């Protein structure tokens, strides 16, 4: 069963090309790693997959729905960890999550569960700007799974994660379809079944099926 099917995804910014004819196919429950240098188009692609942006042209279907039209419905089942966390610095970790519970329409009890899941239960009351960069990243990841999404899209979440981050990522990705952009090939090997390599907005080479090493 396909979770994501995309054909000829193209993204243009004025006369610059961010993505040029990318095709993609992700099965339900599969983990895909998107690799590539900075500027290759990873963030552009992930934003389209998360419905945060619409492609200039091309087709994309997520869970059978047209992702450029049914964005509100899809956002209810997609969790996105963007490049910038977008947390509220004056609010505590718990308050940040509680606010999103209201936006997501989920029960407040999820706050405690998620804090536990990402290992921030002890700093629940600390303002977000007083948290370490790694803790902030954990909070952003926690926010993305508050509503138990079916698809998780993570844009370089490992960039500022502290130790134990790989375990956390494995935990949150379990049981969901996931697309993760990263520079870290070892992490990709550990977490994902397939990789996709981007260079200058295009897919390079053949998709690699990874041998999962435990």
């Amino acid at each position, binding site marked *: 069963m396909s979770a994501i099917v995309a054909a000829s995804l193209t993204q*243009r*910014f*004025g*006369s610059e*090309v961010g993505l*040029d*004819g990318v*095709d*993609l*196919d992700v099965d339900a429950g599969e983990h895909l790693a998107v690799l590539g240098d900075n500027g290759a188009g990873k963030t552009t692609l992930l934003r389209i997959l998360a419905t945060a942006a*619409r492609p*200039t042209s091309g087709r994309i279907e997520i869970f059978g729905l047209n992702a450029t039209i049914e964005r509100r419905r899809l956002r209810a089942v997609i969790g996105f960890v963007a490049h910038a966390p977008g947390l509220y610095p004056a609010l505590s970790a718990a308050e940040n999550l509680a606010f999103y519970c209201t936006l997501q329409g989920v029960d407040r009890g999820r706050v405690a569960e998620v804090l536990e899941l990402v290992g921030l239960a002890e700093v629940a009351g600390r303002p977000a700007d007083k948290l370490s960069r790694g803790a902030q990243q954990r909070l952003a990841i926690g926010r993305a799974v508050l509503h138990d999404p079916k698809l998780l899209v993570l844009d370089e979440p490992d960039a500022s994660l502290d130790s134990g981050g790989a375990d956390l990522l494995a935990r949150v990705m379990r049981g969901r379809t996931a697309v993760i952009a990263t520079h870290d090939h070892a992490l990709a090997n550990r977490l994902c079944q397939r990789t*996709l390599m981007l*260079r*200058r907005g*295009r*897919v*390079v*080479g*053949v*998709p690699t099926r990874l041998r999962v090493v435990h």
Partner: protein
Amino acid sequence: MTKYEKGALAAVAAMVVAAGFIFLYAPTDALQGPVQRIFYLHVSSAIAAYGCFAVVLIGGIAYLWKENVVADRLARAGALVGVVFTTVTLVMGMIWAKPIWGTYWTWDARLTSTLVLWIIYAGYLMIRRLADPGRQAARFAAVVGIFGFTDVLVVHFSVTWWRTQHPGPVVINDALPPQMLVAFFVTLACTLFLAAVMVAIRYRIEVLMDQAVEKSVPAPVVTPTEAGRVR
């Protein structure tokens, strides 16, 4: 000759005809003298400008509703031509005002609304230029166009209302004798025709500009092969 060149020639010819009516056919105004002849083009420009901004409004609504690029291009063309005609209206109004009222400017409802109109659509052109080209620029401009059109009506109403509290100079509004009426309607028709031709030409320019942007996609770095596709 392309149809655009033909249209442009026809529009110029029409304006020459209008000028003939204004200067040769219409009589000199008894009260205001020869400067009154500005009135024909001044009011016609104003009407043409409002017509253009109605095009911007409708194009904007159509774009927000259906994301129709044609609607957006029409809006772009209408805004530019509308600003031109608004400028003409304002300048002619000021030239007319000085001998008649003794001052270049007065804050009556019409002048104020026209100035506000100019500012709003200058803002429209700016947001078009400064926002991300493509969808974002089109969306933002459509919103500005909708609010702008609404605002001109509201401002006109509010200044008229304010004027009842603070009376100002009164525009001499004699009933126009038949010859002047004829000259006015001829000028109006010719000006509207000119505006339509200008919008059509500008629309074509917008089409060409859009196409030029699309063609400027840089040459591929990696030759696409079947192997480059996932699965």
